[in-house]
């Protein structure tokens, strides 16, 4: 098959697969997706807690986070023909101290300023919303339109549907280099030397996007940060809401089939090092630390058995919001990386906007604050 397409997407994660799907839906099936590993969704797309949230997000992300929740998530399962388990029953962000509540209030105020329904609730109301929580909780922020979904089936659902519509996918296709032709980014070169060509190149390869972008002289300021997840055995149905904490101890929810999925850490993430980051080795301290954190807020889960833990890398943008942007110095290139752990919930909206950027249309919401060149010298 031809190695040339209208659009070449680097990264077979949820963002790349969603972009491929929305391009195909708009009538452009001349699209190639290149996944560096052997499995679609091998990176952060399958290594997150499944939050589909608006509360707690930066105001620069909120317009498209809100757009996706209003217009894309509710019908996604039907659209893809795969159950993405989208559940919109609200998000409680819990606080145990006055300092926590102050932090939550600031976040809530920021979100309210761009029109999000999020408010503070007291200990009594927290218990009414979720009776399983600890008595130590003195308040929370409550966003009734937040929720969660299954990141595994969402990613593979976008993949499967795009594949059915004719998009070409390649796995085990690790990209090492971009190359310009007549001043325009056009060639995508794999580790094994294979060359793909596209009129537009979308770079959605998580942290690895940084190395790839550098090959055409573009540096995307972000770092890599490890995050871990765990899952319990099936539990009787307890609650449908999403949970988070002001102290960022953990986040998570009860999945449709009964297991609880939580994300958490042990406090040493910033100095985590791995000889080969692709090996994704979990830290021996994190699982125990996660259990203590979770039981501190949801004591009812103390007897729940953990069946598995895993980890993944976040692509942490320097200022905490992604790069979704065309690049002036590298015509033909569109960046979609640096999602800072917020990529899953916003992926449908981001995928849609990427398809619009390819077509030269206005995006559904303004994303100029996410431009790659937003950093200016400050001294």
């Amino acid at each position, binding site marked *: *098959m031809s190695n040339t397409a209208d659009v070449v997407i680097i990264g077979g994660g949820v963002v790349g697969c969603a972009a491929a799907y929305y391009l195909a839906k708009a009538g452009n099936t001349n699209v190639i997706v290149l996944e560096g590993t*052997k*499995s*679609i*969704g*091998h990176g952060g797309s*399958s290594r997150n807690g499944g939050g589909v949230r608006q509360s707690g997000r930066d105001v620069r992300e909120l317009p498209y986070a809100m757009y996706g929740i209003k217009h894309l998530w509710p019908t996604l399962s039907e659209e893809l023909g795969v159950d993405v388990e989208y559940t919109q029953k609200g998000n409680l962000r819990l606080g145990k101290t006055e300092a926590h509540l102050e932090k939550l209030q600031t976040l809530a105020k920021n979100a309210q300023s761009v029109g999000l329904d999020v408010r503070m609730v007291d200990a009594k109301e927290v218990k009414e919303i979720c009776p399983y929580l600890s008595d130590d909780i003195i308040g929370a922020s409550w966003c009734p339109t937040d929720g969660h979904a299954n990141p*595994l*089936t969402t*990613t*593979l659902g976008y*993949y*499967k549907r795009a*594949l059915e519509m004719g998009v*070409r*996918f*390649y*796995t*085990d*296709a690790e990209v090492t280099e971009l190359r310009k032709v007549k001043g325009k980014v056009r060639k995508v070169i*794999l580790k*094994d030397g*294979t060359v793909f060509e596209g009129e537009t190149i979308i770079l959605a390869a998580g942290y690895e996007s940084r190395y790839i972008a550098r090959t055409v002289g573009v540096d995307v300021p972000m770092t890599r940060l490890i995050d871990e997840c765990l899952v*319990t*055995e*099936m539990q009787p149905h307890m609650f449908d809401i999403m949970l988070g904490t002001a*102290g960022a*101890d953990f986040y998570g929810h009860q999945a449709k*089939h009964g297991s609880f999925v939580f994300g958490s850490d*042990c406090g040493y993430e910033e100095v985590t090092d791995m000889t080969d980051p692709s090996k*994704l080795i*979990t830290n*021996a*301290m994190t*699982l*125990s*630390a996660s*259990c*203590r*954190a*979770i*039981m*501190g807020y949801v004591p009812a*889960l*103390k*007897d*729940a*058995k*953990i*069946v*598995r*833990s*895993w980890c993944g890398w976040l692509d942490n943008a320097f200022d905490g919001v992604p790069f979704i942007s065309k690049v002036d110095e590298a015509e033909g290139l569109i960046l979609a990386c640096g999602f800072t752990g917020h990529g899953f919930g916003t992926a449908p909206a981001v995928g849609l906007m990427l398809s619009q950027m390819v077509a030269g249309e206005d995006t559904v919401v303004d994303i100029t604050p996410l431009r790659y060149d937003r950093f200016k010298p400050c001294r």
Partner: protein
Amino acid sequence: MMDIQEKLKEIGPYVEAEDDGMLVCRCEEVTKGEIRKAVHEGIFTIEELRRYLRSGMGLCQGQTCGKLVKGIVARELGVAPSEVEPASSRAPMRPIEMEILAEDGGVAHE
């Protein structure tokens, strides 16, 4: 490099078999037919399959069905079972209660 569309053409469409109703993953109740069908939908790796169907994601984490699933996927793809990579093993080795797992000597989060 794996060209998914080419491979799908090569293996042809899913054809129902008599024993498709057989339960393969007992923990998550996944049948042979569901696994075979998924391969023809582009789910080629054990990692993807676990995420797509939940096979091997239950209490035993695939310790019972792992080999069987691998065989079914290999046959559907027309490759040797040794060419199909197993899923990563992850801690804990056996399911453990949170309360017990929490007792590693660490202190409570603050």
